[in-house]
Structures are given as structure tokens and as C-alpha cells.
């Protein structure tokens, strides 16, 4: 298979396979959560579930002082690489084109140099996160193969994307094909790993806030 054939495959059948697994996997897993059902709570509600839930979705994004002091590195690095991912995935012009193709609408892009800088920051942060995970004895003990796999699947598109943008090591078609393939691997693993938190995070936070509000306690 030549490099252009490889590129055509990842842009065609490869992307189709990854999309089907990603979309179907995410929908089935989310439906699974919603359709579990909950018993009717017969107690009188002491507050609005909706308001409490919505409040928690936002409030849990802001770390409390004690937690921040205890886990400064984790929180800062977590914020940095998540924001970096947001910018590199959603604000690079060629990526927006893909979203426009699927969603039917688009938004303004950032200059390539800005996205490039964020990609570098994100890569460095993710490497630092891994080093931290390996150096912290408790974290290392708690880490599973899935944790390392998810780390790899997250950093791989960033590194391959950076290499494709700067033409490092290989020809442009090969680099682009490898970048797209790395994204496809991420999409395929997404519904079956903790990457699902991108979707379940909102549900979990809302639920925590909702049950607390129902009981009239602070969440």
C-alpha cells in the first residue's frame, strides 16, 4: 500500500469504521445510563433538582481552596491540557472543516501558529502528567493499563499532528495519514475507556447536584 493509498484509506473506510464505533458506542453507553431507571423518591423535595444539577456542573469546575493546595500540580496540569486539547481540536482550521462537514455549521479558526503553540504546551503538559503518575507511588499503584493506554491515545494525535504540520521525519501524505489514523484509534477506544468522561462528566455532576438539592443540602 503506497502512502497515498494509506491516506485515502484512513480518509475513507478507516474513518467510517472509527465513526460508526464512536457514535454507536457513545450513544449506547449514554442510553444505558439513562435507561437504568431510578426509583421514585417519595420524600418531599427540599429544592429544585434542575437548579442544583446545573449549579454543580459549573461549581465542580472550580476547585476548592484546600483541594487546590493539596493537588496543585494535578489541577493546573489538568486544566492546561484540557484547554490545550479544546483549542487544538476545535480551533484549527482544517479540524473545523471536518466539524462543518458533519454538523453543517462552523466557527472561526485561530491562526495556525497559535494552535501550534497550544499543541506544544499540551504535549509538554501530558508528558509531565505521565512523569507525575510514574513518580507518585500511590498514583502508580492505582494506575491500570487502561490509564496508560488512554494517555497514549490522547497524546498520539497531538504528536502526529505536530509532526504533520511541521513535516518531521516522513513525507507529508504519510504524516497526515498517521495523524488521522491516531485520531481514529482514539475514537474507537473512546466509548470503552475512561475517555467517556467527556460525556458522562456532565451527567454525573448534574446527578450529584440534583440529589443534593432534592435533599436540601449543599453539593
Amino acid at each position, binding site marked *: 500500500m*503506497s502512502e*497515498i*493509498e494509506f*491516506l*485515502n484509506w484512513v*480518509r*475513507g*473506510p478507516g*474513518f*467510517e469504521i472509527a*465513526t*460508526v464505533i464512536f*457514535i*454507536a*458506542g*457513545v*450513544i*449506547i453507553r*449514554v*442510553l*444505558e445510563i*439513562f*435507561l*437504568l*431507571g431510578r426509583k421514585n423518591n417519595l420524600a418531599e423535595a427540599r429544592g429544585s433538582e434542575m437548579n442544583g444539577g446545573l449549579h454543580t456542573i459549573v461549581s465542580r469546575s472550580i476547585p476548592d481552596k484546600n483541594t487546590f493546595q493539596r493537588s496543585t500540580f494535578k489541577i493546573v496540569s489538568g486544566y492546561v491540557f484540557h484547554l490545550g486539547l479544546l483549542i487544538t481540536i476545535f480551533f484549527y*482550521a*482544517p*479540524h473545523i*472543516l*471536518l466539524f462543518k*462537514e*458533519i454538523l*453543517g455549521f462552523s466557527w*472561526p*479558526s*485561530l*491562526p*495556525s*501558529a497559535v494552535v501550534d503553540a497550544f499543541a506544544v504546551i499540551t504535549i509538554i503538559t501530558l508528558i509531565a502528567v505521565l512523569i507525575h503518575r510514574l513518580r507518585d507511588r500511590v498514583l502508580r499503584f492505582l494506575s491500570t493499563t487502561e490509564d496508560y493506554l488512554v494517555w497514549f491515545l490522547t497524546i498520539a494525535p497531538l504528536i502526529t499532528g505536530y509532526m504533520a504540520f511541521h*513535516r518531521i521525519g516522513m*513525507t*507529508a*501524505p504519510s504524516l*497526515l495519514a498517521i495523524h488521522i489514523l491516531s485520531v481514529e484509534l482514539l475514537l474507537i477506544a473512546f466509548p470503552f475507556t475512561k475517555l467517556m468522561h467527556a460525556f458522562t462528566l456532565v451527567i454525573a455532576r448534574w446527578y450529584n447536584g440534583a440529589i443534593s438539592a432534592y435533599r436540601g443540602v449543599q453539593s
Partner: protein
Amino acid sequence: MTNHKKLKDRTLGEAMRSQGISRRSFLKFCAATASMMALPPSMIPAIASALEKARKPSVIWLSFQECTGCTESLTRSHTATIENLIFDSISLDYHHTLQAASGEAAEQAREEAMRENWGEYLLVVDGSIPTKDMGYSTIAGISNLDMFLQTAAGAAAIISVGTCAAFGGIPHAKPNPTGAYSVYDIIKMYGNAELDGISSASIKNNSGGSVHDKPIITVPGCPPIPVVITGVLTHYLTFGTIPELDHLGRPKAFYGQSIHDRCYRRPFYDKGLFAETFDDEGAKKGWCLYKLGCKGPTTYNACATTKWNNGTSFPIESGHPCLGCSEPHFWDGGGFYKALAIPTIDIPTTVVYAAAGATAAGVALGALNQSKKKNAIKQHTKTTIDDLENE
């Protein structure tokens, strides 16, 4: 004396002088060629000297499944150029389209050129070679495959001109009805039992030469840039070797950088300024054509530097995205106007079907869980203290 020499015995310098090409123009060509091939300026006199003395090797040009666009590209200059002179005044001993002879006389010319220059002539091929049925393309009753293998056996080197000869081209596009292959593929596959109708008898008759070890220079493009062909020929005439090639057999001097990296619109790409349609404000301002399907980022060619029509412009300069014609399989990479970031398949439809199927499956699984739960509740029996005491 010079004028009385036979055309093919004249050196290139003599031929040029007889055509009225000035030394100044000739040196300018040498300087341009040295520059294009990334050679130091000190090489210009060496190129000039080598070219002046060069007796051009016999060149046999074979055209197979092609559209003649490559020949058109090389011969359709508005004015005669030194490139043209180098290309067609001395070298060509056989070229279907350009030669006056036809039929048996033409084939005789080819055989004569082969015999006289066995092991030394350059074979230029444009067009891909069909392998499914030899009747798909024949010349004077000889199949393309036979003619190619016969002629390749005695060649010093093979130059695959155009994307069809270099990579299979349009005839090779899915579903490839004629079983068309590139020169490189044919050489690689020769002897493979899957190929029908190969006759190697003629090769044995000639000299027992092998086609396996022939150096192949690919000069892809649909069509290729004329100056790239003459650049390759100049390199061969000057140094007697083939230029440094990339992994696809393309001369690195011309195919070493991507269109995107040398594109004058690249700053707009970096700034995120794109033409959205062919007639919007961005298009008028000359912004990047990436969103209109430009394949410049994955295409290696010299268009952005040597340009076309005597250096006038290249497609992107005319407002059209690069099609990626110098890369293999460029016609099977989805629409020409589909951006590289967009999948070649219909993703929105895939998303809709996947979502609908998954929703149905998810709801069905949910219903199954609910029904299990209800059954469990129904089958639940209560045990009272009385029941326990009775036991």
C-alpha cells in the same frame, strides 16, 4: 564542417548554434538548470561545457495508455525554447505522435535505434501499460507490454513521464478495467504469473538484457512540467548519471518540497485566512485554497517554483486548488474540491445511520433491562416471621 555532419552526430552546442541560439541564452539556461537542481553556481560552467560537447543519446519515446497531454505539455510552447531544442531536435529517434513515419517504417526506426544504441539509449515512457488483455492497446500489432519489455531491455535508463507511466495514472483508477500498471510496477511484476500474455521471446532475441535492474526515473504530473523533463535530461547529459531520487523515484531537486511549503499563499494558511468559495472576498484577495480542496500539503512537485508557461504562473496562482497530480492515486482520493481534512466518504450519512442504529439498540437493551427488572419484582416472594416459624 559542422553543417555537413549528420544531425545525430552533432554535439548539442553545434546543434544550438545552427538553430541560432545565442551563447548568452544557453548560459542562462545552464544557470537556471543548475539553480533548479540545487547545484552550486560553480557548476554552471561544467554544465555548459558538458552540454556543449554532449552527443545526445538516442531517446526512444513510447506512448501507451495516455492522453498525449504529456507530449502536448512539452511541445506546446508559444515560442521555441532551449528546453524544446534540447528535448526534441536531437534526442528523439522514435515518438509515435511526433514522428513523420508510421506503421512498419516507424517500427523499423525504433528497432534500428535500439540496435545501434543497445544498452545506451534512454527510454521515455508516457502512459500506463495494460495487463488484462493485450488487445486493449497495441502499436503496429505489438502489445504495449511486449513493446515496453523489448525496448526496456536495451535501455540505459527509463524515464517515466507523466503520472500514468509513473504511477498508473487515470487508467489505473478504480476499478482499473484494463489492469493498467506503471512502468515501475511492470518492471517489478515482470515474470509474475498473474500477468497474461507476456512474451519475453523478443528480449532474448535482442541481447538477453534484463529489465529488472534498469534505473527508473519517474517524472510524474498530469502533465509534468516541461522544464523538469529537460532538467532530468540535462543532468543525465552533464553527469552521465541519474539525479538523486526520492522514495517514489522522483528527482529530489524537483520533487523535494511540497507545493504547500513553497506556495506563495502559505502565509494565509498560517493566519487562518481561507477562500470559502471560488468567488468570495477571500478568493479575490488571494487567500489560501485549502478549504476548496487544495492538495498542496500532500503533493510534491516543482509547480510553485518553476511554474508553467515559461514561468508565468501555476494553478494556485490562477485561483485553482492543486489537484495533487504528481502523487500516486490522486484520482481516487475523493473529490478534487474536497479539503484534505474532510473524509472521502459521506460522513454525515454514516453518522445518521450509526446514531439511528445505536439508539434503537440502546433503547432495546434498556427495555430488556426494564423487563428483567419487572420480572424480578414479580417473582419476588415475601417471607414473614410466621413462614420462618412454621419451617
